[in-house]
């Protein structure tokens, strides 16, 4: 019997295993309960509401209702999302909307989230895109508040198109292009090349270039749309977006230097905005002296940028070298009340280039608008900008870019417009930017 008594320890071994498993589970629950409770599959748990900065209800989890207005629904779809959107706020903020904490679970009621985004700006931007695919974003480069964020194509979540999976017009519709896509930057990359040249080449003010429309590197040719003229200084080269001049600068600077400045700009990083991780941009340093290096200096070859990080980079130039990471949430309150339910999200920022470099870039970008794109379309706003026309190969139209900022502390807005296969950057994307900016500035 004594012997048998000792053997009963095997029961205790089972008990110990059981308790270990329970303990392991409790630790997991404590660490991941947040994610579990906001698990997207349990639609039962959808609660809380999402409002725009003006108090317009974009989505109510309790009732499943979207905004009343069709254009608001469509233009904020990628923000609010439905089950198909991985980066939508309904998905990434699920645990915050439910009001979860480890002690009371979700029993104390849900939270409402007010966004920094103005739905009416979104509507304007979406209408301005006029059915084309692309991205429009505007953010306050001092506070980080994203005021406008549109990704097209989009659709009405109350009435999803039946051919959404077949129709090429809806290609990539579930992607929020602002966060999750990368594009060939084209000429807007020249800002990076210019910054590299400003810091690396002390005699840049003496730099001149004569554009004949073609620039020969070995057997290959870098082309410009036309001959930009003789003895152009660096400001004129940027304003006219002379490929030849920038190919020469790229060759002089070298691939590694360009890559360094791309990295410094934060364009290779992944930003985190409300648990959404942006796609990383990329740059491949071509061999020194090759035409590829020349092309990479003008934003072609294998250069890729993400719209969100690009916008942050422009904000950084406007903010004299400190890029403030965009944010989406203005406040979080207990549902149906104004009682704050969470601490405000802190602003995050990082350093890009020297203040002097940024000030010089600002001047040059301002020069672009004044001398190239025309100030008239922006009214009184001191806009600094760069357009881009990114060749995407094949027989497709190039992507049209127009990026920049308003150099004014009263309207500290950076903006980014991308129209996929839109054609010429300044004319197509520029007009959209002008429309959105004028409305944003009026706010």
């Amino acid at each position, binding site marked *: 019997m004594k012997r048998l008594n000792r053997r009963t320890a095997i029961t205790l071994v089972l*008990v110990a295993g059981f308790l270990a498993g329970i303990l392991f589970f409790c630790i997991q629950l404590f660490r991941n309960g947040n994610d579990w409770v906001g698990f997207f599959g349990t639609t039962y748990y959808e609660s809380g509401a999402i409002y725009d900065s003006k108090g317009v209800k974009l989505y109510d989890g309790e009732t499943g209702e979207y905004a009343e207005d069709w254009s608001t629904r469509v233009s904020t779809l990628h923000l609010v999302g439905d089950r198909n959107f991985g980066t939508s706020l309904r998905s990434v903020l699920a645990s915050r909307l439910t009001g979860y904490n480890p002690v009371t679970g979700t029993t104390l009621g849900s939270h409402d989230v007010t966004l920094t985004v103005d739905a009416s700006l979104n509507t304007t931007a979406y209408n301005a895109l006029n059915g084309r695919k692309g991205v429009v974003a505007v953010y306050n480069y001092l506070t980080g508040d994203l005021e406008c964020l549109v990704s097209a194509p989009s659709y009405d979540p109350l009435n999803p198109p039946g051919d959404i999976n077949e129709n090429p017009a809806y290609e990539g519709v579930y992607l929020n292009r602002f966060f999750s896509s990368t594009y060939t930057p084209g000429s807007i990359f020249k800002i990076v090349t210019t910054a590299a040249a400003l810091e690396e080449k002390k005699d840049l003010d003496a730099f001149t270039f004569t554009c004949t429309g073609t620039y020969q590197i070995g057997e290959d040719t870098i082309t410009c749309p036309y001959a930009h003229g003789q003895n152009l200084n660096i400001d004129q080269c940027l304003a006219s977006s002379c490929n030849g001049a920038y190919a020469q600068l790229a060759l002089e600077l070298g691939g590694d230097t360009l890559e360094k400045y791309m990295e410094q700009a934060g364009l290779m990083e992944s930003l985190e905005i409300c648990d959404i991780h942006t796609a990383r941009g990329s740059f491949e340093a071509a061999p020194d002296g090759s035409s590829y290096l020349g092309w990479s200096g003008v934003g072609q070859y294998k250069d890729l940028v993400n719209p969100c990080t690009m916008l942050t980079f422009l904000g950084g130039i406007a903010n004299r070298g400190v890029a403030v990471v965009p944010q989406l949430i203005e406040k979080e309150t207990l549902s149906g009340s104004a009682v704050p339910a969470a601490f405000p999200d802190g602003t995050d920022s990082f350093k890009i280039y020297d203040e002097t470099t940024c000030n010089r870039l600002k001047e040059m970008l301002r020069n672009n608008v004044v001398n190239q794109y025309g100030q008239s379309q922006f009214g009184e706003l001191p806009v600094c900008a760069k357009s881009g026309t990114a060749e995407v190969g094949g027989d497709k139209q190039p992507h049209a870019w127009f990026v920049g900022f308003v150099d004014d502390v009263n309207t500290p807005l950076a903006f980014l417009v991308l129209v996929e296969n839109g054609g010429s950057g300044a004319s197509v994307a520029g007009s959209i930017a002008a429309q959105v900016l004028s409305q944003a500035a009026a706010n």
Partner: protein
Amino acid sequence: MQELWIRLQLIFTQLAAQVKAAVAAETEHVVLTVLDTVLPVACGVLRVLAVVVAIIILIRCVLSLVREKTGKEIWGWLAMNDGTQLDLRHWENTVGRGGFSDVVLDFPTVSRSHIALLRDDKGNWKLQPLQTKNGTRVNGKPVEHTVPIKTGDIIDLGGMPLEFYAISDQEEREQAMRLGVAERPLSPAKTLGYLTVFQLMMAVQCLPGREGQDLIMIAASFGILLIAMWAMYALYRTLKRTAFEPETIAFFLCTISFSITAAYSPESLLVQTISMLLGMIFFLVLSVLLRDLKATVSMRWAVAVLTCLLLIFNVVLGEAIFGAKNWIDLGFISFQPSEFVKVAFIFTGAATLDRLFARRNLIFTILFCGFCMGCLALMSDFGTALIFFVALLVIAFLRSGDVGFLALMGTAAVAGGWMILQFKPYILNRFMAWRHVWEYSTEAGGYQQTRTMSAIASGGLFGKGTEESFLKNIGAANTDLVFGVISEEFGLIMALLVVSCLVILAVYAVRSAATARSSYYVIAANAAAAMLIFQASLNVLGAVDILPLTGVTLPFVSMGGSSMISCWGLLAFLKAADTRPNASFSLKLPKRIRGWVPPDYDRIYDGWDEDYDDYYDDPYYEDYDQGYDPGYAYDDPYQYNDFDGYDQPEYTQKWTLPQPEQEDPYATRHWKQPGDKPSGIDDWQSLTDQRPMEDTIRPADHRERRTDR
């Protein structure tokens, strides 16, 4: 005139009806508004209070089990020729040189395991030689096979003579009375009182949102639960049984089961209530059956054959519900035979000590288990098959003590599993999602687990009530995912309390083993505990993706009649191993001695006055709880050390060699006098172990006194 009267009447009736309707509407509105605002808050408060009461109940059960030392019964002695007595503390004792023997005789001519001394419940003893090398003689005659022995027989072990004494009926009765007085559980009635409060709290929480028929159903079921619980306790008291902790825990789990069933669908409470009553009856019947070890052992074959027939019947006629084909539908009732096979398996798998020394004693059990597992595999009930396998491992280890054998069986199982996967690769798909359920959240593999985890997190520590919960609506939630349902509705703490209930039961089984009378009880209790714990592991850890989800029930809690009944059956095995006096039905209570007054030193009392069940007139009662000094019991390191000093080699010498020059501890120690310091129960225990039993039993005058047998 008449017309006027009729008109007036009409007007009045209409008016009255309108007023009535208006008042009714108004009251209803007010009542509804009050209910809407007050009810959720009240339920929230109740949920927190219920957790507190549940903790009190479990703490009381644990305290009662821990504080009460399992009584060390003495069933006989072996007297050496120098007068030393060696206690026989079990019904089954091994005698030998080895330290693991129950009676250690450290002489070179004695074998390591020399003989076994076995007693049956009628008080008849027999001797079984366990080896042949060093001879055994009884009254001078060589013994090679089991022989009956009686008091006064001289047993010769390899030239070492021992005189055998069995305690008389009178002594057995005295022993039972003595232990019964000294060792009392924490008042079970009070614990049950708390449990009643808990049940009412849980019942009230199930009421919001229910109406009409459902309300009646809930009230009736909880009412029956309450009455059944108290009726069982009354039965225990009538039969002089006072220990009620395992039953209390079972009723606690049943309460949780009723609550989640009521929250899901009150109609299902009918099945749950009926099966609980059947389970209780099963428990009592099995307990009474287990008293008679001889009958139990002789019934093993019959039970095994019946079980096999039942399983074959099931395989042929089984109905598939939720994937596994393990149901039998008799038209008026459908049940899961595999649940009852669990009880039968333990019933046949446990063995008495004499069997443990037989060669190849495990073959029958292994074959039987293999058959059961095979049938279960045919029914695709792999979860239950796994439980059987673990139970087999536990039984095999308890019976053989052979770790190598366990490893061999484990390897065989892995190989078998691999073979099955070769033939039925689709089974592998079930495990695809294991530890990756979030990637399979919309598919069968991870659908239930992800929702369970989500629900657990949303419930927080105190749950969100029965109305708000959603997990209960997921398929098989109230059986397979019940841990999540409890967490969501009543909070994580409550779910963890449910888990601890099962742990307490298992530890209780292990603790009982130290003093159990027969190895049959020890093996049965531990196998049952292992089954419960392993099944709970599969259920709880499977639902939260720590183990693969196998779809077994959580003992006592999951919805389902067969499972409920079989769990009560398993509880009978746990209870049978409990040798605390007045604890179990499975122990026959010797006839009480009329007018018996316990010796003073047996009256141990340490302050739990409210718990004291006063059987006898106790003039000193008032004095017992004064000035208790807990350190008192440990003043004497020599005695303290010996308290659990079974394994120490000096134990036998200290205890078996005569120590005439040593002062009698009972003379020097203050036994309880009015106004005296009472001591802790540990103190009493240690002294009981040493007590030379001069007042009851004295080997020297044993033979004269013994006339009854």
